[in-house]
C-alpha cells in the first residue's frame, strides 16, 4: 500500500488543485483491487484529464494502452489503432503471435481480437481519449465500447470526453469523474508556480552590485503573480478562462509588460505606475485571438480590405447586395427611376410605418436572401447613373465574381447556370460593400430599406 500512496503524493505535487480526482483515479487503478469495467472522465479543455490519466497509469504499472481519437480520421482507423496499441502494450509483457491479428475493420472484429489477445492477462486498461470528437464514428461506437469491459473480464475501458451526454452510453451506473475547470484562484496559483524572468539577458552587476540572482527571482515572482491577476481581471476572465489560453495570453503580454522595467524606466516594485503606463496592453483584444497572421501591434485600427475590381463588377456586386438585403416589395420605392420625389415621400412613410408591438428582426443581421438573376439585373440598371454600354459583358463579370466567391449560387449545386430560375446570393459583408460603393460614387445607405448603422 505504501508505495501507491507515495506515488499519489508525487502526482498531487505535479498537478496542483487536482487532489480529489487523483485520489479517485488512484483507487480505480489500484493494482490490488478490481477496476470497474468502464470509467468516464469528463471535463472541459485544459483541465488535466489526459495528462493525469497518463501519469497515474504509468505509475500504477498496470498494462494499458491509450488511443487518441484526434489521430484517427475514421472509425475504422480508431479500431485498427486501438488493436495496434494493445498489441504493442501486450507484446512488451508476453510473446504474441502477430499473424493472428491482421485486420480489424469493425467493432465485432475488435472484440474478437481483444478477447484473444487478453486471454492470459489479469487486467488491462484501454483509454479512449477524446472519443466524443471521433470523426465518422458509427452510432453504436460508444455503447459498444462501454460494454467491452463487461464482455471481456480483464479489460477496463476509460473514456475521456468533454461533455457527457446522459444517453450516449446506453448503460446506467458508469462512474463519471468530473474534472472541473480551474477557478480564478487556482489558475493564478498554478501560473505563479513558474514565474518567467524579467531580465532575460541576465543581470548587469556593474550597475547595481547589490542586485543578485535571489533578489531577481523574488522580483520575478512578485511582479508575475500581480501581472497574472491583472491579466485575469482585464482579459482572461472575459474571453480566455481556461488554463491553457490564460497562460498563452500571459505569455504573450509578459515581455511588453516588463519592457519598461528592463529599460530602467520603472522599478520592480513600482507596479501601480507601471500598470497605468502599460494600460493599452490590457485593452487590446487582439492578444485573445490566435491568428497565424501577425498583426502589427502599432496599428490599432484594422484596414478594411478592398479589391480592385473592374468598374462594372463593382456595380454588379453592389446591386447584388441591395437585391439580397432589400425585400422585393420595397423595390418600387427604391429603384423606380421615374418618380424620385414620390420615392422620398413613400420611403419616409415606409420606414416608420405602424408601431408594431414586436421588435422586428433586422434584415441586415440575417443571411442574404437568394435573388433571381432578372431582379439583380433590374436593380443594376436602376442604380447605374448612365446606361449600360454595349460592350460591358455583365454575364461574364457575374461568372468572374462567382469564381471569386463574392457571389454565390444559391440552391442546388450542379443545377443549370443558364436556367432563369437559378438564384444568386451575395457573399460579402456590409463594410466591404460600403467601401466598394464609395469608390464608384454610390452611397449604399440610400438604397437600403432598413438603414444600416
Amino acid at each position, binding site marked *: *500500500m*505504501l*508505495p501507491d*500512496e*507515495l*506515488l499519489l*503524493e*508525487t502526482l*498531487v*505535487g*505535479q498537478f*496542483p*488543485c487536482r*487532489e480529489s480526482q487523483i485520489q*479517485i483515479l488512484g*483507487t480505480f487503478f489500484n493494482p*490490488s*483491487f*478490481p*477496476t*470497474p*469495467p468502464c470509467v468516464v472522465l469528463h471535463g*472541459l479543455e485544459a483541465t488535466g484529464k489526459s495528462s493525469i490519466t497518463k501519469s497515474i497509469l504509468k505509475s500504477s504499472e498496470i498494462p494499458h494502452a491509450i488511443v487518441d481519437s484526434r489521430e484517427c480520421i475514421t472509425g475504422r482507423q480508431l479500431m485498427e489503432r486501438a488493436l495496434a496499441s494493445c498489441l504493442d502494450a501486450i507484446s512488451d509483457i508476453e510473446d504474441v503471435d502477430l499473424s493472428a491479428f491482421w485486420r480489424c475493420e469493425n*467493432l*465485432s472484429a475488435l472484440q*474478437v481480437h481483444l478477447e484473444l489477445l487478453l486471454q492470459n492477462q489479469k487486467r488491462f486498461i484501454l483509454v479512449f481519449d477524446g472519443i466524443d470528437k471521433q470523426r465518422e464514428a*458509427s452510432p*453504436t461506437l460508444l455503447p*459498444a465500447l462501454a*460494454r467491452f469491459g463487461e*464482455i471481456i*473480464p480483464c479489460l477496463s475501458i476509460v473514456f475521456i470526453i*468533454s*461533455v*457527457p451526454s446522459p444517453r450516449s452510453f446506453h*448503460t*446506467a*451506473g*458508469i*462512474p*463519471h469523474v468530473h474534472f472541473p*475547470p480551474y477557478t480564478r484562484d487556482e489558475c493564478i*496559483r498554478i501560473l505563479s*508556480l513558474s514565474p518567467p524572468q524579467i531580465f532575460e539577458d541576465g543581470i548587469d552587476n556593474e550597475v547595481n552590485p547589490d542586485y543578485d540572482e535571489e533578489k531577481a527571482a523574488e522580483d520575478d515572482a512578485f511582479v508575475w503573480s500581480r501581472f497574472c491577476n491583472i491579466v485575469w481581471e482585464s482579459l*482572461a*476572465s*472575459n*474571453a*480566455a*478562462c481556461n488554463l491553457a489560453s490564460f497562460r498563452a495570453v500571459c505569455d504573450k503580454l509578459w515581455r511588453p509588460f516588463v519592457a519598461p522595467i528592463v529599460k530602467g524606466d520603472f522599478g520592480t516594485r513600482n507596479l501601480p505606475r507601471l500598470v497605468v503606463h502599460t494600460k493599452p496592453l490590457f485593452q487590446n*483584444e487582439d492578444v485573445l*485571438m490566435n491568428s497565424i497572421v501577425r498583426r502589427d501591434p502599432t496599428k490599432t485600427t484594422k484596414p478594411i480590405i478592398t479589391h480592385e475590381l473592374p468598374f462594372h463588377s463593382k456595380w454588379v456586386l453592389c446591386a447584388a447586395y441591395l437585391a439580397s438585403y432589400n425585400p422585393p416589395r420595397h423595390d418600387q420605392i427604391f429603384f423606380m427611376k421615374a418618380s424620385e420625389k414620390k420615392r422620398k415621400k413613400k420611403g419616409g412613410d415606409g420606414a416608420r410605418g405602424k408601431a408594431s408591438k*414586436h*421588435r422586428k*428582426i*433586422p434584415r441586415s*443581421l*440575417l*443571411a442574404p436572401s437568394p435573388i433571381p438573376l432578372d431582379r439583380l439585373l433590374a436593380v443594376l440598371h436602376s442604380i447605374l447613373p448612365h446606361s449600360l454600354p454595349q460592350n460591358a459583358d455583365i454575364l461574364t463579370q457575374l461568372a468572374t465574381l462567382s469564381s471569386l466567391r463574392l457571389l454565390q449560387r*444559391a440552391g442546388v449545386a450542379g443545377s443549370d447556370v443558364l436556367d432563369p430560375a437559378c438564384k444568386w446570393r451575395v457573399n460579402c459583408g456590409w463594410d466591404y460593400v460600403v467601401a466598394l460603393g464609395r469608390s464608384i460614387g454610390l452611397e449604399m445607405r440610400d438604397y437600403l430599406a432598413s438603414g444600416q448603422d
Partner: protein
Amino acid sequence: MPATPRSAKRRRVEDDIANGQLPTESNRSAKRLITTSLKSTSKEPSVEFNLLKSIVLSKLSSRRPIPLTNLSSEHAKVHTLISATVQSGESNSMLLIGARGSGKTTLINAALLDLSRSSKDHFHTVRLNGFVQTDDKLALREIWRQLGREMEIEDDAENGPGKSYADTLTMLLALLSHPDELPGQADAPENQVAKSVIFIMDEFDLFATHPRQTLLYNLLDIAQSRKAPIAVLGLTTRIDVTEALEKRVKSRFSHRYVHLPLPKGLGQFVEVGKAAMTIKSDELTFEENAVLSKKGGILEKWNKAVGQLFTDVAFQRKYISSIYHTTKSIPTLVSDLLIPTSSLTTLPEVKHYVQNIVLLTPPDSNLSLLPSLSSLALSLLISAARLTIIHSTESLNFNLAYGEYVSLASKARINSAAAGQLASGARLWGKEIARKEWEALRSLGLIIQTGGVGEMCRVDVALEEIPGAAGEGVLGKVREKWCKQI
C-alpha cells in the same frame, strides 16, 4: 514484486519530492491530507479483511455477479425454459424486457450458471450484442466463430467464415438442422442426441432493425420447427419490440415475455443494495472460504456491519432516497458505493460513507456547464436566449445575438457612467472575439446548429434557467438584470 525494485522506486519517489515542486499551500494541504490517510492505514488491515474488501469491490464494480433479489419468479421462468431446451431438447424463444440495470443479464447468467452445474456438456451458448454486431453478416460470422470454438470445428478455408454470407448461412442452417432433412445423410445413426444451443441476444431491438431481419427469421424458424434444439433469448429495454418485427418473424416468435420490474418499494431497493454489499458463504470459492474460515467470524461481522449501515437514516438519505425517488437505478447506487468502500480500513461504519462523499454520477444536463463559461460567452448566451423570447422564434444566428449583446452592453455602460460608477464588467468586446466565444458555445452544445442558410442556430437553454444554473455571483448584477427584464 521483489524487494529491491520497490525500495528503489520509493527512493526515486522520495528524491522527486525532495528536489521537485515548490511547497505551496496546496501542496502542503495535499500532503497533510495524504499523511493523515497514511496514519489511519498505519495499522495494516489483515489479509482476511483485504480479501473481503476486494470481493465486495469486485461485486460493486460488476466483476462478480450480485445475487438476485425479488426476481425469483422471473428466474424460475427463464430457468424452466432453458433447462427444457437443454434437458428435453425443446426449442423455444423468449424476450426479457426491463430497464437498464434491472438485472436482465445477471438473471440469464445466474440461470446459465445453475444449468452448467448440472449439465455442463450438453449445451453451447452464443452471445450476441446488437451494439457490437451491427449487421446480420457480422452476427452470423460471430455465431459461427463462437459455435466453431465450442464445437471445435476446423476453421480452415473451406468452411471458415472467410466465405460469403450466403455460404455461412447455409452451413449454419445445416449445422442446426435435423439430420433427416439434410440430403445424403439419411443413414445417420438413429438415436443420436443433438446438443442444444442457447442464443443470448443483447439489445434485441437492434437486431430487428437489420434489413429483412434475416437472422431473426432464421433463428426463430429453427426454434419453432423440428430442428436442433435451440433457445433464443432476447434482452431488450423496449416494451414495444414485437411491433418492430416483420409479420413472418413475429409469427415464428413464441410470444413468451418476462418483464423485469424495478424494485417496487424502498425496502426492496435497500435489499438489493444490501445484497451487493454483503457476502454469502455460497458466493465464495473454495480458496476464499479457506482463507476466511481461518479467522472465524469476520464474515458475519462484515455482514452485520453492512446490515447496520443500510438501516442508518443518514446513510439512506445520502445514497438511497434520491436514487430511489428519481431513477431506481441499481447500478448508480452500486457505483456510488464504490469509492467509499474502497477507502475502508475497518469494518464499514456510517461515518465512512457520510463524510466527504464524492458521487460519481454524470451531470443531469448541460446547464452545469454555465459556471465555467467566460463572461463574454455568458453574455452572448443570455442575449441569444433573450432573442428567442423577443422574436418568439427558435432560430437565430450569431449576428443577431451579437447585435443584441452590443445594444445591451452599451446601455449598461451608459447607465453605469450616468451613475458615476466605473464601467466594470460592461466592456464591449469586438466581433471577432465574440465569434470565437460563440464557436466555443457551439462546441459545448449549448447552442445547436440547425442547418439551413446563414448558420441558423438554436439555443439549448431557456433564459429563466440561466441565473439559477450559473450560480451565485457568477453573472453579476448587470447580467442578472438582462435575464430578468426584456
